[in-house]
């Protein structure tokens, strides 16, 4: 199972989702981040990522796992473009994730 708790905008509210799990929704970003951080702290190793509307990282926190270091230099493609491309693919994957029902069985 992945260790990332994603917080992102969903239909006017904020969702907290771990891949393979049903998302929880909240009225505000602050509430969503609080829940994600609480779950992250409880886990042995986790990271919380708050996505902007284009998928890029607005906030990032790591619990019990190595912090990912910055590469040594900038490449030919701007880091902003790379962040947006990765963010788009990650959000697409989250939205396409088959959600398990409350008993934990994947939905058909």
């Amino acid at each position, binding site marked *: 199972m*992945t260790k*990332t708790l*994603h917080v992102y905008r969903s239909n006017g509210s904020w969702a907290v989702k771990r891949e393979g799990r049903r998302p929880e929704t909240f009225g505000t970003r602050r509430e969503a981040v609080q829940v994600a951080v609480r779950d992250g702290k409880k886990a042995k190793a986790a990271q919380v990522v708050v996505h902007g509307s284009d998928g890029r*990282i607005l906030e990032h926190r790591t619990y019990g796992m*190595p912090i*990912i*270091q910055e590469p040594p230099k900038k490449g030919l*493609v701007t*880091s902003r473009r790379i962040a947006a491309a*990765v963010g788009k693919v990650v959000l697409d994957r989250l939205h396409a994730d088959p959600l398990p029902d409350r008993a934990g069985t994947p939905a058909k």
Partner: protein
Amino acid sequence: MPVRLRSSHIFVNCPFDAGYRPIFNAIVFSVYDLGFVARCALEEDDAAEFRLLKIERLIEECRFGINDLSAVTLDPATGLPRFNMPLELGLFLGCKRFGPANQAKKRCLILDGDPYRYRAFLSDVAGQDIRSHGADPERAIREVRDWLLLASKRTGLPGGGEIIEQYRRFQKDLPDICAVLALEPDRLTFLDLSATITEWLRMRR
């Protein structure tokens, strides 16, 4: 004034040609997933600086080195072996041995395709950390992880199986990421590959 030795930086001394790319990408991915920084001669684009000076500077800055000798084979066109990797390994070991006191902290891993092939062309490196990846990227990941755990003495590093699982997921996502960027996955520069890996790890591990 001695150059600052960066304790999280790893000099990756590996070939970068197409045939070797799967091993190279796997090593770079595991380095970042373990919380370190991959450094490589390919990150430099300043043509005014001599290539060897760039490499010397990189080696001097990095506490760790990963050296893959599997490309030391005879070139069919020239009938001669490629010797850049052993040269850079020699520079790394020389820097550790003869450099300022802080350089004595250097640690390096030597990889090859076969476990004992080095004895036929570089037997003087016997006694170093020499491992074989068998031309298998996932085995290379396990070797890098197990060596780095001992060499760095860091705790909380992910296991080899966990990194491999992440790497498989990254490989599935990479073509889609490159499609958004209008780039070809096999033609990413070292720095763009590094930026893509780090961004992906921050979002999806």
